[in-house]
């Protein structure tokens, strides 16, 4: 009796497992079909295999990049500094233009909710959904080539992230200090200065430093569309087919990013 009962459940359990596995299989097959379709369109049809050539030709064109252009290094110093400054000033400007967006975009402090809140949210989404290259294109056409366009592009791109995270930080604050300031008769400004700001300032600074680190990465490529810095040197090396020079520029970018990561790591640690 016991045995038959167990074997019956055994059948059920095994069937259930098989059914579940079949459903999973269908899901994976669907994903796989999508892959096939995409590979067919992008890799097989679109690629000019003769241009790529054989494996040895690919290896040959990759090996162009091995090696360094030592002579280029002195010329890299100025653009590296420029890139670094674009990132710093861009982040600073981003923070400045962020302040109204943070104020309007945090539900608990926004001055006139039906208008200001959506306004802030839209500007945040716009800022984040436009790629830095596109921002740079827009600003280059507005203010001309050079570092200034880069700074504006970085600022415009940073706004979204800083504002969104900071507004969330403000929405999640501890309400008790705010209540205390209100209870002692503080004005809205005083509530802001003594109740909210001390709580969120370290958080916002952390966010800004994090964004600054990303901005170094971004500012290094803005030169590709004419906004100054290392990207411009990269573009020139590429156009003159000086592949060791390209590698040198990439290493310079690496160095800059490494510095940024170290500084960001320690300053965020110091903040906590």
């Amino acid at each position: 009796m016991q045995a038959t009962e167990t074997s019956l459940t055994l059948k059920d359990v095994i069937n259930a497992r098989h059914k579940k596995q079949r459903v999973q299989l269908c899901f994976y097959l669907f994903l796989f079909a999508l892959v096939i379709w995409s590979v067919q369109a992008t890799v097989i049809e679109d690629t000019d295999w003769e241009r790529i050539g054989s494996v040895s030709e690919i290896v040959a064109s990759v090996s162009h990049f091995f090696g360094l252009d030592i002579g280029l290094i002195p010329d890299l110093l100025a653009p590296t500094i420029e890139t670094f400054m674009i990132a710093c000033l861009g982040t600073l400007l981003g923070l400045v233009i962020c302040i109204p967006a943070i104020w309007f975009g945090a539900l608990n402090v926004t001055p006139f909710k039906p208008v200001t809140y959506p306004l802030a949210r839209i500007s945040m989404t716009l800022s984040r959904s436009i790629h830095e290259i596109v921002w740079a294109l827009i600003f280059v056409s507005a203010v001309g080539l050079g570092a200034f366009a880069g700074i504006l592009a970085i600022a415009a791109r940073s706004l979204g992230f800083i504002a969104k995270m900071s507004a969330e930080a403000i929405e999640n604050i501890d309400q008790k200090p705010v209540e205390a300031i209100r209870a002692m008769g503080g004005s809205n400004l005083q509530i802001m200065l003594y109740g909210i700001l001390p709580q969120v300032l370290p958080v916002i600074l952390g966010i800004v430093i994090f964004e600054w680190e990303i901005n170094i990465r971004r500012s290094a490529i803005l030169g590709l569309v004419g906004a100054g810095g290392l990207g411009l040197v990269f573009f020139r090396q590429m156009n003159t087919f000086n592949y060791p020079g390209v590698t040198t520029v990439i290493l310079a970018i690496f160095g800059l990013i490494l510095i940024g990561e170290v500084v960001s790591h320690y300053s965020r640690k110091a903040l906590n």
Partner: protein
Amino acid sequence: MGEKALDIEQQSGSSGTGRDGIRREWSRFKYPNSLIGYGIVLGLLTFFTYSVHYLNIPAERIFGMFGRVGDVLATRYFPPDFEYIADFGYFDAVIETIQMAYLGALFGLIISVFLGWFAAYNVSPSPRYIYPVARLFTMGCRSVHEMIWTILFVTILGFGLLPGVLALTMFSIGFAGKLLAEEVESIDMGQVEAIRAMGGNHLQVFVYGVFPQVRVAFTGISIYTWDVAFRAATVVGFFGAGGMGWYLKRNVMQIETERTAAILVSIIGLVIVSEFISTWARSRVDKAK
């Protein structure tokens, strides 16, 4: 020692003079902490001012510039030429962009599952050798901007979607690999220990001890990666990797500003749609937790 502490407690702040007759002073300035603080602020200000000077920025016109941008957009880029993008060629480019982002993110995610495993110190099969290599590879993918990846792959493989897919793969590895490794490093090691104790090998430890714990996070990261990869995919074409970016490049070069505006509007629209989908999907995943 104890007496002294008592003294401080007993002092009454009203007269400014304590019971023991010593005048108590309080200053906002604390040495050396305040000095370091002011020093940092001063240093930063000097640096910013010097940078403005070094880069020849017309600082007084900065805020005017945003108005100027508005002017330029209104006069040159308005109205966007939507008829230009309302044809099958452009629609194909949109589909290609989506496919490129899908493949790039997918390949990147598959690779970053392994990288997340190898580059997490607590479960890496060999903390001494595999861990630093995996870590370095992830960092390298992250440090190089997706546009530079695109240019490099285009140089090697020529124009087309394939270099775009590969560039997005590298980008997704850098993006997802780091997030996933962080996720893996914060798991409960007890479940890992249990699988090790019953004789599981590295693969089984990962499949049973690690992956079930990060599966939800991984789903979230996957959706996020797809979203970010799509955002990048709309632009990689600008450097020769096909899709919508290629249209953008052509019209920018030909100074067809109204067509450019239409393309930009379509890119922004699609990115916002993809962000909505991604946010919605991630909130669903979070709820399923």
